[in-house]
């Protein structure tokens, strides 16, 4: 449906995109995730013909949209976009939502029906006659979504569509996005800085970093097998430890600052690598003397901090290097974890993901 071929965009001397290549399939939900300033908005704007790439080609259904100007309008009418900081027209909410339909010459009854439907869908039923300018940030965002949605585009581009919303509204919008995709077959490309949102919604995601897609894949691939240390960090792997592969029988061993860690890796001895371990995969137990039956990595250490995080606590242990684990509050209380306490940290070789260090 959408093919990006070596797309680049410079603003003056600033290279924002520098050879983005990828493909979004028809009917797919594709997330563009990446740090602030990585060019997510820029990429979506290029797709929506709001800006011109410095180089490369963007094809929609085979049409090179930036050269075949005579098709511009029809290409654009295939798409709907919600901007990162949406702006509303100085009119009522209903008139705001009607704009796209009016552009397409829809008749009044149809427009009215659609507006009502859309407002209900985004949870703003009854807001039709309000002046859009007086809405709160989150309400505006939902109006913008409704406005893009009512035209039933083939491609929906959403630039951080829930950045201003509370969790209940986020859930509602996410639900809506999934339903639009499922019921209408709309191809959806959205950007987000919330990788969990990427994971919840997207069939595939592209991680935009340093002007290119550092990795494209299913959420599970990206989350469990990040392609690089940066991606690992970005997708929330909190434990990233530098080391060097030391060849050994069967599974490889890694030397991380003098400490031996067992892991599976495709890299040969002597290679500089990073170990990525999710907090959830790290267990913490009281520092009981004596050997425990566990075919993995067991490291003694000292708790350095315990901080709340949602319904959990994040416990950081110094065992030569820092490792963090996520535990329920109850567990923290049960184990009586606090700063300075001696514990053992354990994790299996399978939960260690190894990436090359650059």
């Amino acid at each position, binding site marked *: 449906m959408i093919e990006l071929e070596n797309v680049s965009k410079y603003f003056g001397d600033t290279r924002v995109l520098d050879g983005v290549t990828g493909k979004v399939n028809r009917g797919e939900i594709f997330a563009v995730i990446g740090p602030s300033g990585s060019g997510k908005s820029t990429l979506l704007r290029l797709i929506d013909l*709001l800006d011109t790439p410095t180089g490369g080609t963007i094809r929609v259904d085979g049409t090179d949209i930036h050269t075949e100007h005579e098709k511009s309008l029809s290409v*654009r009418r295939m798409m709907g*976009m919600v901007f990162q900081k*949406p702006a509303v027209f100085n009119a009522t909410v209903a008139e705001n939502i009607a704009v*796209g339909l009016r552009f*397409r010459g829809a008749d009044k009854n149809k427009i009215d029906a659609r507006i009502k439907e859309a407002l209900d869908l985004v949870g703003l039923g009854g807001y039709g006659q309000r002046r859009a300018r007086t809405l709160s940030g989150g309400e505006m965002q939902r109006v913008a979504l409704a*406005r893009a949605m009512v*035209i039933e585009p083939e491609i929906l581009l959403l630039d951080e569509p829930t950045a201003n919303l509370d969790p209940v509204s986020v859930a509602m919008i996410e639900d809506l996005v999934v339903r639009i995709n499922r019921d209408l077959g709309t191809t959806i490309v959205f950007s987000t800085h919330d990788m969990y949102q990427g994971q919840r919604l997207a069939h595939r995601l592209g991680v935009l970093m340093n002007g290119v897609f550092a990795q494209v894949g299913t959420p599970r691939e990206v989350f469990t097998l990040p392609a690089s240390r940066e991606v690992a960090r970005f997708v929330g792997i909190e434990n990233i430890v530098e080391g060097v592969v030391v060849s050994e029988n069967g599974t490889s061993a890694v030397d991380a600052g003098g400490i031996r860690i067992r892991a599976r890796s495709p890299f040969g001895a002597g290679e500089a690598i990073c170990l990525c371990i999710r907090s959830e995969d790290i267990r913490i137990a009281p520092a009981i003397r004596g050997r425990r039956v566990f075919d993995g990595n067991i490291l003694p250490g000292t708790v350095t901090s315990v901080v709340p995080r949602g319904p959990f606590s994040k416990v950081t242990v110094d065992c030569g290097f820092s490792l963090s684990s996520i535990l329920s509050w109850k567990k923290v209380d049960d184990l009586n974890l606090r700063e300075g306490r001696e514990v053992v940290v354990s994790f299996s070789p399978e939960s260690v993901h190894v990436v090359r260090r650059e």
Partner: protein
Amino acid sequence: MYEIVEGFLEAIRLIVTLDPNVMAIAVRSIIISLTATIIASLFAIPLGAAINFGTFPGRKSLINLIQTLYSLPTVIVGLLIFLLISRVGPFGFMRLLFTPTAMIIAQTVLIIPIMTGLTISALSGVDPVIRDTLRSLGATKLQFLTNVIKEARFAILATVAVGFGRAISEVGAAILVGGNIAAASFASSTRVLTTAISLETSMGNISQSIALGIVLLVIALGVNLAIAAVQHR
């Protein structure tokens, strides 16, 4: 100074008694200047929009040129139109000189630059996200323009107010192509408020001039209230 007071009282008298002579002049002023403003808007607003949103070489120079034309003296506009429509001019056959139509043409030409320039200012003030939103909603060029203009309606109508103000208050072009004629019939007369004021002034009737000036301002107030009513809708 007593002329000012006298002028005020005279103005009130003229308005209250609906002095037929003055009313005819006032109505003619309104018709001519309002028509000119409407025609000029039809040119200037789309033109301003095209320039504001266009990306063509020389765009900045064009804007400078338009701003420069703000300074075009009304007499020069009058002269140019005069040369074009006088009997020996290229459009002489239309016999437009010294008719209200000629005055409408001259005022239209006079206010197009300033209305175009202010339209550009007004539109350049529209939030870029609004512009992007319209584009992304699939607006055709025309839909885009009408909607951006709608969004900037406050400033655009202020532009119209400026245009009307300039049209109804100018005298140089009006007198050159209109001639300030007080003929027997309404349609062949070309005396408007400003030319009448200028005549009264040249005759030394200061309070009569001021009275007519006040009548003109009352008209302008009415037009502006109408514009404001649209603006705040």
